[in-house]
Each structure stands twice: as C-alpha cells, then as structure tokens.
C-alpha cells in the first residue's frame, strides 16, 4: 500500500487565499485607521465593510487549520497510485479525532476533474468541472478525543476513462477526495492526485 500525499493545488489554493487576505486586511486596516486618525469618521466607517471582507477571507484561508483542531489529518493509502482505465484498486482511509466531534457524513470519492484556465485582459480565470465516479462511506457518529476510525473500499477507474493530462492551461486529473462533514465545525475536504496512464484495456 502507498500513502497518498495531499495534492499541491489543494495546498497552494489555501496558501494563496491566506496571502491575499493578509494583504487585503492590512491595507483595509491601515486605510480605515488613517481615515479615523485624520478626523474623517464617516470615511472610516466606509472602511469597515472592507475589514469585514478581509476577516472573512482570513477565516476561509485558515478554514482547514480550524477544522484540524478537532479532526486530524486524514491518512489515505492505496494499493496503486498509477493506474490504467478499468483498473480496480483498494483504498484504506484512517481518521483520527483530536477533540470530541459529531461526524454527519464522511466519504472517500474518486473524481475526474477538468480545469480550464484562461486570461481576459490582465485577469486570469479558472473553470472547473468535476464528476464523481466512485466512492465509499466511512463511519459517522460521535467520536471522542483520541479516537480513530478506519475504513476500506475498492474503487474502479472506468473502462472508457480519459488518461491524466496536464497542459499549461488545461488539465484533466484523477483525484481521491476525502470529505468529512462535522456538526457545527468546518468540513475537511482534502484531495490526493492519482495518475491514470494512457493504456488501452
């Protein structure tokens, strides 16, 4: 069995959001504070919504870390990480809990994702389309601090699957996604990339 590592894109996305939110919040605070110090109270009020947006972005960026306070990092191992169409592989999912938590839904999904990136003027946009091809469910319910769960499943890459493809602007990816939906707590949504080879079956 091979342990899967969280996909780089998944981590990069959160990192970029944290960096952007720090810049946004710093500038909003500086602008509002300067307006307030110069006696322009009304103008300072104008800055408050921007501070609120900055705080919202910060929370979004650190969402996964907040989730990690109660829910440990998922450990995902697979019998193979380089696959071919029509191939079945087994997956083991281990989950630890750091603090008491109620899990409402927990599953491991096999996803095919299209990502298209394009520029319009100076802005870059990304469109994503996903299809869930297979999944298995993990235990749900109340878990105490230090408790761990383990579940196993078998997944199959479809016979007519497209292979993995990475262009400069377009990507076709196969991913495993762990979803943990906790009550009154941020969800865990970690992704692990697989490689599907261009092999005829």
């Amino acid at each position: 069995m091979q342990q899967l590592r969280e996909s780089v894109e998944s981590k990069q996305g959160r990192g970029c959001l944290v960096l952007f939110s720090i810049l946004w919040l710093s500038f909003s605070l500086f602008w509002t504070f300067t307006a307030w110090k110069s006696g322009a109270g009304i103008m300072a009020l104008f800055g408050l919504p921007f501070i609120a947006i900055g705080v919202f972005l910060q929370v979004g960026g650190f969402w996964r870390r907040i989730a990690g306070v109660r829910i440990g990092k998922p450990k995902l191992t697979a019998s193979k990480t380089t696959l071919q169409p029509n191939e079945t592989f087994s997956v083991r999912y281990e989950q630890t809990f750091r603090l008491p938590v109620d899990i409402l839904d927990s599953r491991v999904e096999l996803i095919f994702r299209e990502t298209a990136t394009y520029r319009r003027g100076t802005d870059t946009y990304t469109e994503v389309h996903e299809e869930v091809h297979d999944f298995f469910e993990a235990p749900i319910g109340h878990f105490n601090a230090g408790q761990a769960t383990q579940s196993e499943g078998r997944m199959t890459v479809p016979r007519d699957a497209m292979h993995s493809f990475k262009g400069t602007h377009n990507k076709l990816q196969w991913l495993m996604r762990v979803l943990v939906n906790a009550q009154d707590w941020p969800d865990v949504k970690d992704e692990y990339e697989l490689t599907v080879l261009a092999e005829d079956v």
Partner: protein
Amino acid sequence: MADVELSISFLSPESTGSVPAFRPGEVIQGSIQVTPPADLNCRHLLARLRWHTEGRGDRDEGVAGQEDLFQGQLRGGVSHYQRFQFTAPREPWSYSGHYVSLVWEVEASLDLPLARDPRASARFILAPDSRR
C-alpha cells in the same frame, strides 16, 4: 490570383461518425492534394501531425510529427498528390469534455516565397477501442 486548393484525405480509416479514427500506435496514412491556379515555386509542402485543446481554457498545443513532402515547381491547374504517413502517438487521446476538448489533426502547409502560406487541416480521432 486565386487561392491554392489544398485538401487532405485519409487512407482507409475507420471512422467514428464522419471523423476518421485511429488507435495509438497505428499508422496514419493519407494524401494531400495541391492544385495551384498558376505555376508555383514550392519551397516546402509540409504535413504536420498535431494536437490542440479547445474549450474554455487558453490553447495548449503540441506537434507529434512533421514531414517535408515536396520541394520544387508545381504546375498551374494540375492537381498534385503527395502521400504522408505518421505513426499515431500513444497520447494524448482525443477528448471532448465539459470545459476541455483535445483535438488531433493533420495540417498541410505550403511554404511559398513572398506569399501567404496556404494551409489546410483535417481532424481525426486518436483513441483506443475502449473510448470509441
């Protein structure tokens, strides 16, 4: 001056709908027909095997092969046929998705001195049996 007529046809392909289809590793054969309206000095008649993406994203592309089929004089009003042959690469396969499509084609281009180079292309599907 009228445009040069340039067309591509594949030899005995299987077809998916109206588009010829080839398996990875299979030989792609065909011919290019060139009909110039007047005598032409052709520096190169090139055939390229290439792919590109279509859809929402900016274009990615690649060339898998190129053949220089002909150099010399082409007589006006006469159709010239040149055969090409490539081995279909293993990947990427043709794909048509929600935001991304991957398209294979054979492109013919005529390199003419001091003139716009006429081009033509013909699409085909590169896919194993499991994806047809």
